[in-house]
């Protein structure tokens, strides 16, 4: 594995934004390979391609894969132990 890559997780925001109602570039993904917690925006991404592969900035294991077809998206998160997603503060509605 060379240290050359072209993009980062910022470039995933649009495709993930079609699936999720919150911005996932601000989510923290914990790598299943090394345990490093990294902002999705900082994952290493190669592209453009029909599918996007995002790797851990620390160990370069695949954390997330996303393929967008004409009528569906495939999101493979097996390389992430968890995704911590920031949300607006919760509280009573009134």
């Amino acid at each position: 594995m060379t240290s050359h890559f072209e993009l980062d997780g910022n470039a995933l925001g649009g495709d993930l934004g079609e699936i999720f109602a919150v911005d996932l570039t601000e989510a923290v993904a914990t790598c299943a390979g090394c345990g490093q917690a990294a902002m999705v925006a900082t994952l290493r991404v190669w592209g453009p391609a029909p599918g996007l592969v995002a790797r851990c900035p620390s160990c370069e294991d695949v954390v997330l894969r996303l393929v967008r077809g004409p009528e569906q998206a495939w999101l493979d998160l097996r390389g992430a132990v968890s995704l911590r997603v920031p949300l607006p503060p919760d509280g009573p509605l009134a």
Partner: protein
Amino acid sequence: MARAAIPGRLSWRVATVADARWETASARTLVLDVPQWPGHLPGQHVDVRLTAPDGYSAQRSYSIASSWRAGGPVELTVQRVEDGEVSSYLTDVVSPGQQLELRGPVGGWFVWRGGPAPVLLVAGGSGLVPLMAMIRARGDVRGRQPFRLVHSVRTPQDALYGTELARRVRDDPGLDVHRVYTRKTPEGWPHPPARLGVATLNTHGWPPDFGPDVFVCGPTAFVETAADILVALGHDPKKIRTERFGGTA
């Protein structure tokens, strides 16, 4: 207390090119009218999708160059890349009146949200575009946060927004701009061409003690180098936000 609304999922919409202007010999700004645009934050980008008559489609991300004013347009500055199938269309072919598919605004991490901290912007080439949106947003509200921009360009002719930045340095208090020329300098420039180095970021950045918000955008190798230097100078890695783009946009 009412719960803050989640803005919802993104979808593609149609934008119309209202105007276009050259910024350099190879970078062009497209002014886009986007009906019902929800507004954007400085640093965000959009995805642009082109579809050929035979159904082949290509999608790329472009940073938004403009700050947001209600009802205003969305401006993208596109740098032509050799063999770039999308960028060369956007720089050389598309003309006012034509339409593009656009999705956004995208991103919530590489975003300047105001606040009192000083800001250091480090740009490589057209990596200046999202940082320019931050400078413009600060100018719109007459922000007082001290802003420093270090911009690395190959030659003086490659410097985006040169006239506007000169005006803003004069008119926007607390904005400094320093350029690094990597191949050719202006007449009488005191240094030979050189890449961004430790001395430049030490002199023209902020001391780590000031706790600046740092935004770095450019080609991958540039971003790596700049971020490494900033960490070595003592900046908190958590305060350094980066955006990399490849050479194939």
